[in-house]
């Protein structure tokens, strides 16, 4: 077994649509240790969800891993059958979806739905399942759990439903929790409650979390490492401080500049990233960000940049860094 909980190497994943091949992931490499919190940020269509879903083997029918490998907890996910996958899903890796309104089944009680995961993956029966369900509801901060297990999803508020979904995901103490925009559908004050809860739970259960979000504010407080995705590539990866204080990719810099500073003393005009997101059916030949980049050079349009490593934990794919390094070396000589 490798030292990593998640080890994705050069993954390529495409969706085959009537309009042609959509290259959703291009050479994605992610390594994640146990108990680590990784944030994946990017715009819609950048491939952040697809990357995380492929760890669970949850790729839409027309999607296929066309290159590279996906390893999780010692399993080669890309080589497993659906039947083998089912033993892992919900047991070793769980997922929380964005919208708690649609990820619960409206015709089953809360107790029944949480109990399902327990019955499927453990040999607990009858009253043991009930006790475990109640314990889980207490863990996620739901009051009167005995009453709640008899209720249906529509009887609960959005924040409560998201807590139920989290309880369900934690039923078998997974090693990895994938949270796909877990707070986007929630109000700010409820979002604060859920983030606080996830922060506490990761300590208690020592599980790894992959936090998928477009909100830089959410990753800033929670994550150890951040991967910034653009057009199916990880354009920059680093520790949270690296990404926020020493960004080395023009897209990362642009993202940080484009959000308003909350405690701004004087008014500062926002600096948007001009242009439109990439069309994955016809991706640009060189760097995918080149058409929107202010510092675009000739080479950016024709060749994809390689990884420039700044430390063991920080890299970016941008020709500007190569150029800077080259100039540095030239000066040294």
């Amino acid at each position: 077994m490798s030292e990593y909980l998640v080890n994705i190497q050069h993954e390529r994943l495409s969706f085959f649509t009537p309009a042609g091949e959509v290259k959703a992931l291009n050479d994605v490499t992610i390594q994640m240790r146990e108990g680590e919190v990784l944030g994946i940020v990017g715009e819609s269509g950048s491939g952040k969800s697809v990357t995380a879903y492929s760890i669970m083997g949850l790729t839409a029918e027309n999607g296929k891993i066309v290159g590279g490998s996906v390893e999780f907890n010692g399993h080669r996910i890309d080589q497993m059958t659906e039947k083998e996958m089912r033993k892992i899903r919900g047991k070793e890796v769980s997922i929380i979806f964005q919208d708690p309104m649609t990820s619960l089944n409206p015709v089953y009680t809360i107790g029944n739905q949480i109990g399902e995961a327990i019955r499927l993956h453990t040999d607990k029966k009858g009253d043991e399942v009930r006790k475990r369900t109640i314990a889980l509801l207490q863990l996620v901060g739901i009051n009167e759990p005995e009453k709640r297990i008899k209720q249906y999803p529509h009887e609960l508020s959005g924040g409560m439903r998201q807590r139920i979904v989290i309880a369900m995901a934690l039923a078998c103490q997974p090693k990895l929790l994938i949270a796909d925009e877990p707070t986007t559908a929630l109000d700010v004050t409820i979002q604060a409650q859920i983030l606080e809860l996830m922060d506490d739970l990761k300590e208690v259960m020592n599980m790894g979390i992959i936090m998928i979000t477009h909100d830089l504010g959410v990753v800033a407080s929670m994550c150890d490492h951040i991967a910034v995705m653009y057009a199916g590539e990880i354009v920059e990866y680093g520790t949270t401080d690296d990404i926020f204080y020493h960004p080395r990719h023009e897209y990362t810099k642009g993202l940080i500049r484009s959000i308003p500073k909350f405690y701004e003393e004087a008014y500062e005009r926002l600096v948007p990233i001009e242009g439109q997101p990439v069309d994955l059916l016809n991706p640009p030949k060189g760097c995918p960000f080149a058409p929107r980049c202010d510092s675009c050079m000739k080479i950016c349009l024709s060749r994809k940049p390689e990884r420039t490593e700044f430390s063991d934990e920080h890299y970016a794919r941008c020709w500007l860094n190569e150029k800077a390094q080259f100039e540095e070396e030239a000066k040294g000589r």
Partner: protein
Amino acid sequence: MSGNKNLLEVTDLKQYFPVAGSRAVVHAVDGVSLTIKKGETFGLVGESGCGKTTTGRSILRLTEPTAGKIVYDGEVLFDSETKQKEDMLPYRRKMQIVFQDPYASLDPRMTVGDIVGEPMDIHKLYDTKEDRRARIIELLEHVGLNSEHANRFPHEFSGGQRQRVGIARALAVDPEFIVCDEPVSALDVSIQAQVVNMFEDLQKEMGLTYLFIAHDLSIVNHISDRIGVMYLGHLVEVAESEELIFHSAHPYTRSLISAVPIADPKIARESKRIILEGDVPSPVNPPSGCPFRTRCPYADEACAAQMPELKEIAPGHQAACIHLDKVS
């Protein structure tokens, strides 16, 4: 901000909706009073269901208010006491709206040119086809699109571009006042900044006045001169943006501000979130007295007795809470 004249004065606006199959009513907006000065951007924030969108729509009388008084540029549009209800059509040339969802607010079977041209037809602004067409293209260029886009359909555009079409449509009648109902919340982060900047540019060029509704406090703070915070159909605090962020008084505003995720790891690690217990009560059965008392850490019996009034606590800063001295 140009001049100090009030463009819009709303007094004790109420908007109730009946609940199907029962006698209950949803108290969506329950006595909101606000004024917006000419050339100003007034931000309205609050959680979903607090009535901020309904307030915007009631002001334009897209839904007929249950009670209250709306005065626009010195003219009474609606007054429930004197039963005055003006015909809105002439005012629609002055008061416009940009909707939240750029996917749902554009007719999929109309070309972008016709979408932008429809308000001109309704108000019979141009006599010839050529003038109309020239104006459509001028508007599209104004919002960062081009003439070639006029013949295309909404589905051919990205979210940010569609929102630009929605803005061009609102500008088609040369309005003075625009209700911006969550105009950027459906857009990607990098596109949000483009659209926010465009709103600011248009305001400068055309002297527009905005009612900017959003749940994202950092965007509202950025674009607004003054901000009103809503909770369960009531305005609980109003102040200039900077005053509100740095010297908020109402306990709800404070928790709202502390809950905003700050995109700066060092600040985020140090800051303490004020976590509110529980959820927003139902607007069908709002609590007696202060609407926030069921989640407020300072609430006591006095809060249940009556709805606290919005009182001036500093110049231009109002808050509705009877325990402001206790809030630390």
